[in-house]
């Protein structure tokens, strides 16, 4: 039914898929497992036509397929239910399910037939309880997920891709999903099931394929393997001399957090960062890491808990207060929240420190340039030129500009949220060196990452988050990727 041969994909200079071979038959449920950044999402995007592969063959039902656009993928019978729902909240359930394909009589929409058809599809998904006339935005998330699946089934696909469908489903809903998958399998549909929840995978899949670092490492039958085994394969081992050796000598406590809670995001987080220390924070997407960082930086409000900087309790309601307290946050998405892309390197790097270079109400551009230039030089940002719009820089150099901005504000604790996402290897090495160098000057670093190798290699100890809670605090020397991953998935012994 579906065959992939040596499929490759690179974003810029970074290759994320190094030749994927995969074969799956009709009437099969194939689970795809892999840690964050392993290349799962890219693979799914290629299959759904959202991005194009650089090389390799894809055959569907024996015929070569280009999959150049989502439309082509759909015409070939591939339907994807994405993690982020793609429903229009203002429209009715019926309109969402039959969008673009509403039944018509004499040019007008035949609403009775439309609702009937939507109702039938919902019944097939096992959700005849949903009123097709209801407005989607008013329904709970689990219902929306089922509507999304009903929508995918409306065109009777031959291949159905489910990306983390169970993220919002639980208990009875999950049972219904599994019933549905089994009935699809009986009808000869190929189901690709992507999930972090290994117990589910073991229950529903006929085969489990593990992706690691852009390669398929194993494919096995659930009966022959175990969640522990799969975790080991997902974690694997990478040999790389990219991390400078750490000899941590933690000094006094710089940042202390007690019982920090933000309702709906995370609860009861207690941690501390000492001078000269790199504390890693690992967790899957959605585990609450980023939200913790935002609360520590005053970008979001915590609902309970205490934060102390240098022993003094601080009230962080705005980023301005957090900066004044000596904190800095390099956010996870530099294009969305870190940079003003149309402005130049100097403006971006100097954005948080304009007050320092003001004289008689005017910006002293010379002093600003000198200040920025010093750090730019140290971080080796290329190409040179403070007047260059950051839009034209590579991902790695853009990240360095963001870092420059925060180093200029002279923080005592630097919070880095996914600092190496989309950054090439050479720049990564630079960044790790820089982090190491900063801690030697007495800075404390909180390094949030979903890259196992990075979080282990660059930090002195690692905190693990799982579903909004801190579940582990392990010295890097005494742990390994497997243990971290097990904690983050919630299967640690």
């Amino acid at each position, binding site marked *: 039914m579906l065959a992939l041969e040596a499929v490759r994909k690179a974003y810029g200079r970074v290759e994320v898929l190094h030749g994927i071979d995969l074969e799956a038959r009709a009437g099969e449920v194939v689970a795809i497992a892999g840690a964050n950044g392993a290349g799962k999402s890219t693979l799914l995007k290629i299959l759904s036509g959202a991005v194009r592969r650089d090389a390799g063959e894809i055959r569907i039902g024996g015929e070569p397929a280009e999959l150049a656009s989502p439309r082509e993928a759909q015409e070939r019978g591939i339907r994807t239910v994405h993690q982020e729902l793609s429903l229009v909240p203002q429209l009715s359930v019926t309109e969402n399910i039959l969008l673009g394909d509403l039944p018509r009589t004499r040019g007008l929409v035949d609403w009775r037939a439309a609702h009937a058809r939507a109702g039938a599809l919902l019944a097939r998904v096992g959700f005849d309880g949903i009123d097709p006339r209801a407005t989607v935005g008013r329904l709970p998330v689990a219902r929306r997920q089922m509507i999304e699946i009903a929508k995918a089934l409306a065109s009777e696909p031959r291949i159905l891709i489910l990306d983390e469908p169970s993220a919002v489903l639980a208990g009875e809903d999950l049972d219904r999903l599994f019933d549905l998958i089994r009935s699809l399998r009986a009808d000869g549909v190929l189901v690709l099931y992507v999930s972090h929840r290994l117990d589910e995978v073991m229950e529903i899949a006929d085969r489990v394929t593990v992706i690691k670092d852009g390669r398929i490492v194993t494919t096995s039958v659930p009966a022959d393997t175990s969640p522990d085994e799969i975790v080991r394969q997902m974690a694997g081992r990478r040999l790389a001399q990219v991390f400078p050796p750490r000899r941590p000598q933690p000094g006094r406590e710089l940042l202390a957090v007690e019982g920090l809670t933000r309702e709906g995001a995370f609860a009861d987080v207690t941690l501390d960062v000492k001078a000269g220390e790199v504390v890693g924070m690992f967790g899957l997407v959605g585990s609450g890491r980023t939200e913790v960082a935002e609360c520590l*930086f005053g*970008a979001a409000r915590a609902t309970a808990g205490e934060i102390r900087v240098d022993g003094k309790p601080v009230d962080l309601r*705005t*980023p*301005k207060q*957090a*900066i*004044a307290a000596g904190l800095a*946050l390099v*956010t996870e998405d530099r294009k*969305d*929240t*870190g*940079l*003003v*892309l*149309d*402005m*130049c390197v100097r*403006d971006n790097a100097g*954005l*948080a420190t*304009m*007050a320092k270079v*003001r004289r008689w*109400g*005017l*910006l002293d*551009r010379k002093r600003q340039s000198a200040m920025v230039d010093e750090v730019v030089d140290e971080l080796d940002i290329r190409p040179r*030129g403070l*007047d*260059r*719009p950051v839009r*034209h820089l590579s991902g790695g150099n853009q990240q360095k500009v963001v870092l420059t*901005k925060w180093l200029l*504000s002279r923080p005592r604790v630097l919070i880095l949220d996914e600092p190496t996402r989309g950054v090439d290897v050479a720049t990564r090495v630079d960044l790790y060196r820089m982090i190491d160098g900063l801690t030697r000057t007495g800075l404390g670093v909180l390094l949030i990452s979903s890259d196992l190798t990075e979080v282990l290699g660059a930090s002195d100890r690692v905190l693990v988050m799982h579903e909004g809670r801190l579940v582990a605090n392990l010295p890097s020397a005494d742990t390994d990727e497997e243990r971290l991953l097990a904690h983050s998935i919630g299967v640690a012994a």
Partner: protein
Amino acid sequence: MNAVASPSAIKARLPELRANRGLVINGSFVLAFVVLVIVAAFTSDAFLTESNVTNLLRQMVTTGLLALGMLVVILTGGIDLSVGSIVALTGIMAAGLSAHMSVAAAMTLAVIVGVACGSANGILVARFRLAPFVVTLGALTTIRGLSFVYSETPITPLKPGFLAIGTNTVGPIPVAAIVMVVAFAIVQVFLTRTSAGRALIAIGGNREAVRLAGIGVSRHLLLAYAISGFCAGLAGVILASRVGIAQPSVAVGFELNAIAACVIGGASLAGGRGSVVGTLGGVVLLALIDNLLTLYDVQSYWQQVLKGLIIVFVVLARRQEEER
């Protein structure tokens, strides 16, 4: 250092220059000017006369000041539709108040009213997070109404001093045009050399990044709308002074000319991009077109048609040049 930069080297650095100097070096734009002026000079005897040039300069002041304030707001990613109405309100208030106090005091008060109108817009946009389009659309109607409430009928100011700022000249150059140029210079310095100015532009580019840099976003948004209100107030006072009579129905639709000038000058309505020099160019271009169509005796409805088409054409030409 290279003694002479080669043309290709300059071309390679263009995006850089555009983004940072606030300068717009744009071929089709400059070409449009040159062609217009040459054609005008050859085909119309009246064009290069001193009185026409003075007139031309005087006429661009209102649009110029409005466009300047508009640019500041557009840079933040907003829009100010209320400026035409502010022109009417401040003009008629200046004329009315001048009967009771000195001309200078009346005009100052009127401009303060303009700033107040802009600040009200700013508060609604910044603190209550309402869409700028909606807020200023409401203000457009409200402030127009207030002008009629203040005086249903036109007011003719009696003090001769009232006409000074709008009609006096230094040589052939109107005082009002000098005021406008000074205002442009001040805003240019504000946008390129003050932290508030840089913050304003940055907000239009990426509001969240600015917030996370510890900069108060609301404060700066409010400032932008206040500046627009100030410019509109100044324009209103000068217009009333030039015409010698203040009407509550004046300046309907002027906000659109101001927006057109900004856009012709390279401003992006999405915010974060635009330049003072470009906007000035847009203002001059619009004034030239108006002036020429009048000199050629084109019927006024056809003037509108032609002007609209020219605006679209210039923006289109700019876009293609930028994409190249």
